[in-house]
């Protein structure tokens, strides 16, 4: 990192230079270290809350009488008709198979909550983000909400989760930043693919 005096104007900012190769071609560009870090944390907090809320609101019946317990059967059986056939068939089967529907009704709210908390606090960030993208994969293609095109919020959510994984976003102001300095993680480097 260096301090740049941009165009001699006396404006100094911390600039990092990234040098690498992308598919065999050299790449070199400068970026602002503070802004890059800021955006990683900013993204993590927003995506984390997105999923924390998605999980919490499915438990709202526990403290708000008018709310109903979460039930995925309506979406599985009737909300996925626009999905590709192979996925629609699977989701209908899941929605009409008692034990699998029960597991789904249990796993989606809890999964969303845990994924959101992991991303929000930067704890097991890569693991949480992987399962966040996994869930969104089914929401994206299952709902097939392509009225405004194939690039919609769910697909962009998958991409955001992928970016959190690539950046190892939990290392910036996150629990993973502390965990990765522990002896256990240093002695078991594979765990960094779950943290980060």
């Amino acid at each position, binding site marked *: *990192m260096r301090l740049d005096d941009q165009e001699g104007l006396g404006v100094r900012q911390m600039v*990092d*230079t*990234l*040098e*690498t*190769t992308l*598919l065999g071609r050299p790449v070199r560009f400068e970026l602002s*270290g503070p802004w890059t870090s800021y955006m990683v944390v900013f993204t993590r907090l927003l995506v984390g809350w997105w999923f924390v809320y998605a999980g919490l609101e499915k438990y709202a019946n526990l403290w708000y009488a008018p709310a109903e317990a979460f039930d995925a059967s309506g979406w599985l059986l009737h909300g996925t008709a*626009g*999905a*590709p*056939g*192979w*996925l629609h068939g699977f989701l209908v089967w899941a929605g009409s198979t008692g034990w699998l529907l029960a597991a789904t009704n249990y796993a989606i709210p809890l999964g969303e909550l845990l994924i959101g908390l992991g991303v929000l606090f930067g704890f097991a960030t890569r693991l949480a983000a*992987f399962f966040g*993208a*996994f869930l969104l*994969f089914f929401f994206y*293609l299952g709902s*097939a909400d*392509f*009225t405004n*095109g*194939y*690039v919609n919020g769910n*697909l962009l959510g*998958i991409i955001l989760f*992928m970016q959190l*994984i690539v950046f*190892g976003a939990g*290392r910036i102001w996150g629990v993973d*930043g502390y965990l*990765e*300095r522990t002896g256990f*993680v240093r002695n*078991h*480097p*594979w765990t*960094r*693919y*779950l943290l*980060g």
Partner: protein
Amino acid sequence: MSNTDTELGPVDTFAMVVGGGLVLLGTVVLGLLDTFIGNPYPLPVLNEAGEVVASPTFSVEIRGTIIALGLAVFALYAVYKLFAAIVSPETVATAEGDVPTR
């Protein structure tokens, strides 16, 4: 910042090219063709009676499946990276260059 130049292996390159390529094919390439060939909307157009009067050139079946395959490549790649790191721990730090920082 440190130089983070790293050499990717064939699996990494495959994930980048095939995974990203399929997602871009399903969204951007077929989306562009879909826009200018026939019905420009990604979903079938219905009349007031609910009958389909125009279908997209590339159905959800085609575009959705292509995108799904691309995302599946990325998912499998992530799983591969984890298990490769378990089998060969020494590859983690050198291959990624993302040592923990404050």
